[in-house]
């Protein structure tokens, strides 16, 4: 069975290349942090109702991560998941392969321009409410690879990031601290203005 009868790999490669170049051209500025989007007026008027309190408790206590583990930080994340630094006590031991069933994207690794459209697609497919933790130096700013020709200088060029966890790679204790910070941020949210 000839492969060429089924698909032309050069066509697929060209299409992918065009997609990458288009995304690269569109991502020259960092996306500002989500908190800054809130109107000042609206910020002062937020009161959490009891419905909010319950919803926020439910959301922050069972954050399920989407699968986005390119590089070295992935193994610190897996170590955090494992029996010693148990993430199960935060309700987070599930890593969902399908982004539809996830609400947290923990970006663990360097992002290259070739991978960027795939990560953007995963983020877009996640259902609201969703949060992003940028884990590690490469996710925050490109890290040690910042001056490279193929590395995106930080995930916030593509997707809005809520919490930044520095380190190369961050220790599991640092990652858990970052997750706690995100949980505190979720605790302050109200369903009135949405996410």
């Amino acid at each position, binding site marked *: *069975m000839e*492969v060429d*009868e*089924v*698909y032309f*790999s050069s066509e*697929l490669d060209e299409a992918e290349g065009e997609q990458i170049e288009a995304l690269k051209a569109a991502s020259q500025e960092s996306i500002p942090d989500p908190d800054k989007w809130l109107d000042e007026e609206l910020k002062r008027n937020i009161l959490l109702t009891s419905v909010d309190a319950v919803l926020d408790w439910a959301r922050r206590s069972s954050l399920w991560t989407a*699968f*986005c*583990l*390119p*590089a*070295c930080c*992935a*193994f*610190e994340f*897996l*170590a955090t998941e*494992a*029996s*010693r630094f148990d993430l199960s006590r935060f309700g987070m031991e599930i*890593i969902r*392969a399908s982004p539809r069933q996830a609400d947290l994207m923990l970006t663990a*690794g*360097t992002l*290259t321009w*070739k*991978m960027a459209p*795939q*990560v953007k697609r*995963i983020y877009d497919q996640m259902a609201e409410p969703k949060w992003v933790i940028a884990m590690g130096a490469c996710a925050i700013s490109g890290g*040690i*690879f910042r*001056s*490279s*020709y*193929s*590395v995106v200088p930080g995930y916030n060029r593509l997707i809005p990031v809520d919490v930044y966890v520095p380190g*190369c*790679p961050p*220790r599991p204790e640092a990652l858990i601290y970052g997750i706690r910070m995100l949980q505190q941020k979720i605790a302050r949210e109200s369903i009135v203005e949405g996410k």
Partner: protein
Amino acid sequence: MVGKSKAMEAAKEIVIKTEPFVVNFGPAHPSTHGVFRMRMTLDGEVIVDMEPVFGYLHRGIEKLAEERTYTGCIPLTDRMDYLASMSNNFAYVLAVEKLAGIPVPERAEYIRVIMAELQRIASHLIAVGAFLNDCGAFMTPFVYMLREREKILDLFDMVCGQRLTYNYMRVGGVSQDIPDEFIPALKKFLKEMPGWINEYERLLKENEILLARAKGVGILSRELAINISASGPVLRGSGVKWDIRRADPYSIYDRFDFDIPTGTVGDCYDRYRVRIEEMRQSLRILRQAMKGLPPGEARSDVPHLIRPPVGEAYARIEAPKGELGFYLVSDNSIAPYRFHVRAPALINLTALSDMMRGWKIADAIIIFGSIDICMGEVDR
């Protein structure tokens, strides 16, 4: 009875027309260890052809190294095969020492061997754990092996303060001497580890499901393995007894007594057994190295900015994934002129489409897992 056999005869006559289709095994997939993409052409569930696509983690390390000093390139080498950072550091500093002719004190050699063998065990634990995860033993062996790996990471933490990307070896030795608590902790680890390996084996070695899934699957013949320049457990699983620690000993490996496990057929089960046995042999080397550790300096006197003479050097080690080599070209400046890595994971993948042809998708995952790659090294 008669009617049934007639129906069966008739059924054999029917020819069902099928059409192959392409499935993308995308870069973000839980079973591909890292960001690896495969375009599979399938006929039903059987793989007819497979095209691997790399580059999703290409960070340009070889280009970045040209603007950093020789010592400054060591953190870059950590991040290539991030599951075996000590080995990467080791190969790189061996290359620089060969290029510049820098001697290494005895104590530093022993410390390097201890670190390299501990790293081999840690890397094989993840390799075997992920392989068993793919085979269907969902998470249990993986989590057990991560527990053992934590003990090794504690030892590394004691020595250099880092759990994953160590940046520990330097040109001319290691960056700092081992603390006093290290040897007792290592003794304790060496006493307990053989028991843990036996624990894994008890449930898995003769396990029917593992044998059914891995024996005879993804065979890499001896001739093909040599032709594609495979190395490490992939080459030894196919029956070729080639281990750089024995064939071309570097550092002080000629002083140690250890066996080289090899497979017979070259299927996934053989590669898995080779890795388990290599862990046991590493424990053997560790005991000998610990006993023979001499007092002395941990690093020889090296100038702050190393300026090797014009020339080139190739140094290689037996990394957990295969033959890891560094080819350095120097033009007498403080940065390397050319920094090339001979990545074992990339070269071991050459025959992947041959190994997968004719198997089903579920087997493809196992075949891929048994080669044990790390995308940081494949893509650099």
